[in-house]
């Protein structure tokens, strides 16, 4: 696992250097393939991302065994029959395994063929699940819906180049008809593409035959009609094919419209030379790959990519974003940042125990490097999506973790006593770990709902409030540290005082930014909807954080609590942040996220339990001490 990751890092570094130093280096066909643009879920992305997200949705992983998602997608498109026995579907619940009468397997992974046998049952389950009310759904329901739609998507994807394959169902035996369609004798059966093209010249033929009484139709006429019917059915079946890789054609109806290869094959009648050329290229790519001719495939792919990128640029697409996104996918920067933060945490915890100064230096270096990778990842995301890095749950974790490190750096800069590095490495590790769970949801750069689609206020409001969250979390971690330091009883008072002071300042910073963020949110709401406050759960969550911090500061001012009380309060402030952040999202339980939400719920309860346990243990000696 780690070794493949390491290889990935090397590859990405090589990619980076080769992209800058040797632009003309020959590429292998898979790399070309991964860089092709596709329109998916309202966003233009490289096929590399599409492959990862598609595989992730059905299997929860970005690899299938030793094979990368991209290699898997290539097989699915170019030789779908080889994927039928891959265990690509991972069910999340035993309920669904049992309902579908699938064999028991510890990892609950199943093949396309295995699911296909029980398809009608799966369809029934998914239908009843989606009709059920939000509150009464089970994790199995969400799983059934996910697997059902995933299965259909895989089915569609594997048929997305069928138009280019010779199809025995389309074989023409009638010699007269063969002449009429311009097919020579002894060739393999025609493909949809061949026939559709031939048919497009014979538009009036069907009408001519239709008005004839059935008795006076020739065998060739009959064959023509039934062939027409098959073509019509195939056309219907392949509407909304997911492989939307053609950035528009050259005639009026196709210009500037993204089309799937099937859309292009269907509209062959429009006689669009650009789309025709595209289809020929895709057919030849398929033939080259099936014929194990990678050089040929690479050169055709390069030709297609050039043509598609130039059309994409013409309709306002940003082609550099595709290269950046592939780089982003391969480099896996957040994973590496997480590892570095983890190592830094180990060093930072060992330092006071062993007293070796090199441990302190190395934790500084590790956090610094982690922070660079972390920042690089955020920067890449910004360059790709061109919007502030906080528009969905996944991104808030990345960003809050990043701000947490910044705050920790400020603390370490002023205090130089390990405290910043402890809280920084811990929060960095924690947030990046959590973010990985949220990355499983599919496209993390997806488009925004209309209501969020304003840049300035979204940016100002969300940035400030997440800075506030980050400060509260870092403050809470310092609260833990304070309580532990105090509990050990061996710390000099000076250390405790320093920790207490840092705690106070961090919480004040948190109160400041949470308040600012909430005010900005109110202004955003007023500008957008004519009201400041609507008692929305998300708003209430932020209000609870503010109220709690206000209580702490007033209680401290009144002398009702000491620094230890403040530290315990800081621990509770983490709980308020976590509840405002997740708890609020959990209130509106949605059907499609149920399976995942219940997992989050469980994690939340465990977290709450542990924190309360910690507080009880840490505060037990308070009375004896003060």
């Amino acid at each position, binding site marked *: 696992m780690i070794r493949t990751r390491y290889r990935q890092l090397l590859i990405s570094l090589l990619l980076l250097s080769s992209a800058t130093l040797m632009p003309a280096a020959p590429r292998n066909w898979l790399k070309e393939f991964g860089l092709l643009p596709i*329109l*998916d*879920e*309202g*966003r*233009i992305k490289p096929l590399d991302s599409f492959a990862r997200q598609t595989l992730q949705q059905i299997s929860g992983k970005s690899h299938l065994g030793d094979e990368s998602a991209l290699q898997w997608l290539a097989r699915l498109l170019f030789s779908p029959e080889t994927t039928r026995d891959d265990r690509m579907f991972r069910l999340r619940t035993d309920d669904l395994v049992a309902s579908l009468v699938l064999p028991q397997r510890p990892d609950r992974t199943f093949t396309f063929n295995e699911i296909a046998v029980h398809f009608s049952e799966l369809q029934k389950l998914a239908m009843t699940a989606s009709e059920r009310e939000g509150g009464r759904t089970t994790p199995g329901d969400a799983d059934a819906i996910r697997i059902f739609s995933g299965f259909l998507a895989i089915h569609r994807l594997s048929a997305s180049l069928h138009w280019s394959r010779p199809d025995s169902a389309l074989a023409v035996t009638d010699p007269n008809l063969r002449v009429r369609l311009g097919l020579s004798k002894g060739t393999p059966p025609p493909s949809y593409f061949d026939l559709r093209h031939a048919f497009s010249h014979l538009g009036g033929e069907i009408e001519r035959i239709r008005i004839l009484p059935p008795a006076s139709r020739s065998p060739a006429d009959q064959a023509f009609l039934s062939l027409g019917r098959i073509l019509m059915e195939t056309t219907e079946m392949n509407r909304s094919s997911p492989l*939307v890789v053609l950035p528009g054609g050259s005639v009026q109806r196709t210009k500037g419209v*993204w089309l799937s290869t099937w859309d292009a094959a269907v509209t062959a009648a429009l006689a669009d030379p650009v789309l025709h050329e595209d289809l020929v290229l895709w057919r030849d790519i398929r033939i080259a790959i099936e014929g194990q001719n990678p050089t040929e495939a690479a050169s055709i792919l390069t030709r297609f990519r050039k043509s598609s990128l130039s059309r994409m640029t013409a309709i306002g697409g940003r082609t550099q974003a595709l290269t950046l996104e592939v780089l982003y996918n391969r480099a896996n920067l957040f994973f590496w940042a997480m590892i570095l933060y983890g190592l830094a945490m180990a060093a930072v915890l060992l330092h006071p125990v062993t007293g070796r100064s090199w441990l302190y230096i190395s934790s500084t270096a590790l956090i610094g490097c982690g922070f660079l990778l972390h920042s690089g990842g955020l920067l890449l995301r910004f360059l790709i999506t061109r919007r502030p890095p906080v528009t969905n749950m996944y991104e808030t974790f990345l960003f809050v973790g990043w701000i947490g490190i910044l705050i920790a750096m400020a603390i370490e800069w002023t205090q130089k006593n390990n405290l910043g590095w402890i809280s920084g490495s811990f929060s960095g590790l924690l947030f990046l770990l959590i973010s990985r769970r949220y990355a499983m949801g599919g496209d993390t750069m997806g*488009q925004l*709902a*209309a*209501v969020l*689609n*304003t840049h300035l*206020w979204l940016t100002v409001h969300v940035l400030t409030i997440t800075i506030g969250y980050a400060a509260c979390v870092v403050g809470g971690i310092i609260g833990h540290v304070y309580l532990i330091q105090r509990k050990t009883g061996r710390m000099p008072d000076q250390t405790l005082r320093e920790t*207490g*002071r840092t705690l*106070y*300042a961090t919480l*004040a910073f948190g109160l*400041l930014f949470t*308040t*600012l963020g909430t*005010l900005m949110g*109110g*202004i955003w709401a*007023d*500008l*957008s*909807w*004519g*009201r*400041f*406050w*609507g*008692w929305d*759960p998300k708003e*209430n*969550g932020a*209000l*609870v954080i503010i*109220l*709690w911090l*206000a*209580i702490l500061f*007033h*209680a*401290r*001012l*009144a*002398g*009702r609590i000491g*620094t230890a009380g403040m530290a315990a309060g800081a621990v509770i402030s983490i709980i308020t942040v976590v509840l405002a952040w997740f708890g*609020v999202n959990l*209130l*509106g339980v949605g059907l499609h996220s149920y399976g995942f939400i219940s997992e989050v719920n469980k994690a939340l309860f465990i977290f709450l339990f542990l924190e309360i346990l910690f507080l009880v243990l840490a505060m037990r000696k308070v009375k004896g001490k003060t």
Partner: protein
Amino acid sequence: MIRRTLLLLASLETTIGLLFYLTILVIAGTLLQSAKGLDFAQETVFHSWFLPWPIPLPGMILTGVFLAVNLLLALFIRLSLRSRHTGVIMIHTGLLLMLGGGFIARYSVQESFITLAAGETTDRSGLDSKSSRPSQLLPFSVKLLRFQVHHYPGSQMAREYESLVEITSAKGKTQALIRMNRPLRVQGYTLYQNSYGHNQTGKTVSTLSLVKNPGRVFFYLASFLLVLGIVVHFLIVFGKKRSPAEAA
């Protein structure tokens, strides 16, 4: 006796107690909202003087009034006009204004809806989006000229909805485009794009919300004071060598 009562009312302990109680109200209201809907939660908790239980516990409004009294007294009694309190005084004045604005908003905000198909005109708005409840007369009339939904390419996800409207009032006719997050303000009313749908005849209709909030200015003033106060306070606190924790 009066002096002691006033001191008690102005005390930090009262503040802490009220903030605690407010926190519980907010949490309870949020939970209630997820179980019974926003309207119910607003009626029983967020917009009420008393909670509808056998024991007449204060609701959000009454708690707000208590908090305002506590703040006001604290401003006069505890926070003497010393320079190091400048920021704190500004923050608390801001909070008072905020509470006042909230109070005004509670009793004067009017929210109503109009639903129009392209070409239709109205000078009345309904109290809910289905406009089945009694309607009120507006000081202007609204004509929907055009409604459009823009989707993200190749998906059913809406990127933007917009209504082109013509407003006719005593001052004459104007045209304006109302988009998501880009409302129109006319004579104290804010018109924003609420939703869209289809009427009985299958025509696409656009629903606009109309909000009239005379307390708006309070919020902006309060926000301004709060932000300024926070900045001033931090400058004062961090401008000194000694930390606030030690000072306290």
